[in-house]
């Protein structure tokens, strides 16, 4: 398919991203470039434009690719005709010597990204399927683009990228106008537009070609190696890939500049390209040359649960987990006051969310051995591969079944007049679907909480969780307990709109039927699990731990019983203790213990966000 390519040189701004892609074109050993940024910022346009440069071969990895197509398998037609199993190369093999482009790489199913990783690491594509065993070279460099709003990237995959660039839209009105003007001009007359830029494109292709020729002569001495190590260490980067990436990138930069030696600028720029995703810092704030010391490592939101047996895979880089708001450049002055206030609220709310969903995800993965992407036994989800069925063959994988049958057609008397299929040929689809968490807040709305403010905060948390959890597919519900009863204020939903409407009026005051609140929350989650087998429940109890109302027995004892039942139902939980008095009754902690849940004090949720906010959004930092 011929597609109208936008010229690389005609992309307005995005100098960092352009530089990164050119470096990769010159030095494939950089491994890969990841462009991470908000929607509509020309990420894909830029990468696809790169394929227009001479000497760059771009192979695209569509999101709907299946495993067999990625790796390759038996060539159907030859097998039918001759009975011979001939290897049909997959996408990875076809990408040998090329640049493989995965748009929305964070949405790639685990099965695919796993195969991608293996091949990227070894440079060899190994296929063991359809009765053939085949190995072929697949040395490619990888370019990924992603929108962090849509979910995170697996850390192992993230680490493979030599270069990371946070892409943001143009904020200067003049450049914004230019973006629009060129987009309109290109759309109106793509051929004419390309002709206009042909000279710049040719020059750029030439630059890349001569840089490639020059690259082997660019020497790296001990001093440069030391500098790279120092830069990597300053950034707290884990492993040795960081140093290598810096050096590879710096050499490419020197070659692009027509030099055979590195200078300090090359190394600094290379560090800015190679380190953002390796330092434990926000992905949206790339290291600045002005910043003297590397930012201190962020405290992990819940190291406690990690200590309790989470594997390496469970650790999410805080990078992509940031709320989209933080990717925003500082607001123009006229708006500053207003937008800061909005961000403050958003940040605070976000912290709660990070704690909770982080935990939900971890639990889910620990439980099933998978991330939030779950192999599903139903016919839902996307087909990523195929397998030999156990029992009855439902949900047939047609291609795989035919490939299995093909080599036997000559023996079975099948062929051009029709294939002969046997049950032993049947292959069924392996599907993967994204499963979100089902999160129920059980909130103390009694008088003892002084509860109006607390309820408002919870409402904010519910809404903000709904708002930036599209990709996670989380559902959120809210149970309030007060007076004599616990009531569901919001049934599990994904709708911001609905939550907003249902939570307009939040009743508070009265006594605390803690046990009833826990029971109601458990009931909601149990119900959901019955409806959807793959549901990942999480109960969030927000209370000061005073139980002073019961259906007869001792309120405290009843609450503890209810907590035990939550644990027995295998529903993970988190407790947030809102008690502010000096003398702690400690019931919240006790309940947490019964549920095997971590217990946070409300101050813990409060202390950090402001500091982060100031660091991330003060005009001085920008």
């Amino acid at each position, binding site marked *: 398919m011929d597609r109208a390519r936008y010229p690389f040189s005609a992309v307005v701004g995005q100098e960092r991203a352009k530089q990164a892609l050119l470096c990769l074109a010159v030095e494939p050993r950089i491994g890969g470039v990841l462009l991470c940024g*908000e929607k509509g910022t020309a990420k894909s346009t830029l990468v696809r434009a790169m394929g227009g440069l001479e000497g760059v071969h771009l192979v695209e990895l*569509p999101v*709907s690719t299946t495993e067999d197509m990625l790796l390759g398998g038996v060539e159907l037609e030859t097998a039918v005709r001759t009975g011979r199993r001939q290897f049909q190369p997959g996408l990875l093999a076809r990408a040998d010597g090329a640049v493989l482009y995965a748009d929305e790489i964070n949405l790639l199913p685990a099965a695919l990204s796993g195969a991608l990783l293996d091949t990227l690491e070894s440079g060899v594509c190994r296929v063991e399927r359809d009765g053939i065993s085949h190995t072929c070279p697949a040395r490619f460099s990888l370019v990924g683009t992603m929108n962090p709003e849509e979910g995170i990237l697996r850390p192992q995959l993230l680490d493979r990228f030599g270069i990371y660039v946070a892409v943001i*839209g143009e904020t200067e009105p003049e450049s914004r106008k230019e973006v629009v003007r060129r987009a309109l001009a290109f759309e109106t007359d793509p051929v004419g537009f390309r002709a206009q830029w042909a000279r710049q494109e040719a020059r750029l292709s030439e630059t890349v070609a001569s840089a490639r020729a020059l690259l082997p002569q660019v020497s790296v001495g001990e001093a440069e190696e030391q500098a790279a190590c120092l830069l990597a260490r300053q950034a707290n980067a884990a492993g040795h890939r960081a140093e290598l990436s810096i050096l590879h990138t710096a050499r490419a930069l020197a070659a692009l500049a027509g030099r055979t030696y590195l200078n300090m600028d090359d190394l600094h720029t290379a560090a800015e390209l190679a380190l953002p995703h390796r330092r434990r810092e926000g992905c949206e704030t790339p290291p600045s040359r002005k910043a003297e010391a590397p930012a201190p490592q962020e405290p992990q939101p819940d190291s406690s649960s990690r200590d309790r047996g989470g594997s390496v895979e469970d650790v999410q880089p805080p990078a992509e987990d940031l709320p989209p708001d933080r990717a925003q450049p500082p607001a123009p002055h006229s708006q500053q006051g207003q937008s800061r206030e909005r961000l403050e609220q958003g940040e605070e709310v976000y912290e709660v969310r990070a704690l909770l969903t982080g935990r939900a995800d971890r639990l889910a993965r620990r439980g099933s051995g998978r991330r939030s992407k779950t192999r599903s036994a139903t016919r839902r989800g996307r087909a990523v591969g195929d397998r030999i069925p156990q029992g009855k063959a439902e949900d047939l994988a047609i291609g795989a079944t035919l490939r299995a049958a093909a080599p036997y057609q000559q023996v079975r008397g099948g062929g051009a007049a029709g294939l002969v299929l046997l049950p032993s040929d049947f292959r069924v689809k392996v599907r993967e679907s994204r499963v979100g968490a089902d999160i129920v807040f059980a909130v103390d709305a009694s008088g003892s909480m002084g509860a109006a403010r607390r309820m408002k905060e919870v409402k904010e948390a519910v809404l*903000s969780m709904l708002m930036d959890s599209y990709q996670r*597919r989380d559902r959120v519900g809210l149970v309030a307990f007060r007076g004599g009863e616990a009531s569901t204020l919001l049934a599990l939903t994904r709708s911001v*709109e609905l939550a907003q409407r249902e939570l307009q009026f939040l009743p508070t005051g009265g006594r605390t039927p803690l046990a009833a609140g826990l029971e109601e929350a458990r009931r909601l989650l149990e119900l959901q699990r019955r409806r959807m087998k793959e549901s990942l429940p999480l109960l969030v109890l927000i209370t000061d731990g005073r139980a002073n109302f019961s259906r007869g027995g001792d309120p405290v004892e009843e609450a503890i019983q209810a907590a035990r039942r939550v644990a027995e139902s295998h529903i993970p939980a988190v407790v947030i203790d809102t008690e502010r008095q000096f003398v702690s009754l400690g019931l919240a902690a006790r309940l947490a213990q019964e549920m095997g849940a971590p217990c946070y004090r409300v101050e813990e949720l409060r202390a950090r966000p402001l500091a982060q906010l100031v660091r991330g959004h003060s005009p001085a930092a920008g």
Partner: protein
Amino acid sequence: MERYEYPFAAIVGQEKLKTALLLNLVDPRLGGVLIQGEKGTAKSTAVRGLAALMDEVEVTEGCPFHCRIDGEMLCDECRTKPDRHTARYRRRVVELPVSATEDRVVGTLDLERALKEGVKAFEPGLLAQANGNILYVDEINLLEDHIVDVLLDSAAMGVNTVEREGVSYSHPARFILVGTMNPEEGDLRPQLLDRFGLMVEVHGEPEAEARKEVVRRRLAFETDPAAFCAFYEPEQEKLRRRIAAAQDRLSQVALPEALFDTVARVCTALQVDGHRADITMLKTARALAALDGRQEAAEGDLRQAAELALPHRLRRAPFEQGGGAELNWGELFHG
């Protein structure tokens, strides 16, 4: 059996919705429409009614993607074939049911040919049908994630690339995406939201008189669809001519420099993500001027365009109600 669609021209009220849909016929690259609203508010009727307003075009005979004879984006076969025969093709509304499987949407291995002849051939899916047409997804917010991913990809690129079931294939898939949703049943991912050029919220007609008229016309249509359609045919024809004239005029409509300034100012002030909003606002203003028979887009067009192109792209703070419906446009444009 002849099936009648309720004529577009007979829809009572819903001016914003109708305008948004017509604009997409005038400029097919506008990016489609997302229609939000409750059940029973003429959403589907309006979208399906577009079919009767769409033009006939010249395409390659027998091409499963109905590549235009004079088109830029051609499938491999049309691009390499020396002499292509021309066929007339009426552009249409292709519906993507929420239950559609990925195979059905992107296309897959042609099973029949594979079984009968042992030959590997591509069987086009809904995206192939949608090329050059309107792709209509009712209740798009209920679509499975992975289908949405595929839609996003094709909608952005105008190309459907298939790597499945042993077939590697890619073909043009440039379509006008029209989706409807009831926001109470869950939200749409922001990424998909941003791909929609325009967004309108529809509500039932509040006026008693208008409501009565809605019912009256509906009953008349159900009683005798043929007569009803015939009655509205002159108005439909008028609409068709208006669209055709606007299509012809579109490329000549001038966009004064001041409009670029306004767009940059408004989008910067609102902190809209990325640049799609800027681009869509100007294109919408241009299409509005064309539909109105003018040679130059004006500030008023831009303001109307903003109401269609911006609300779904605004960041929603957690505590604000709804989208940007209550934004003060006047202040924004002159502040």
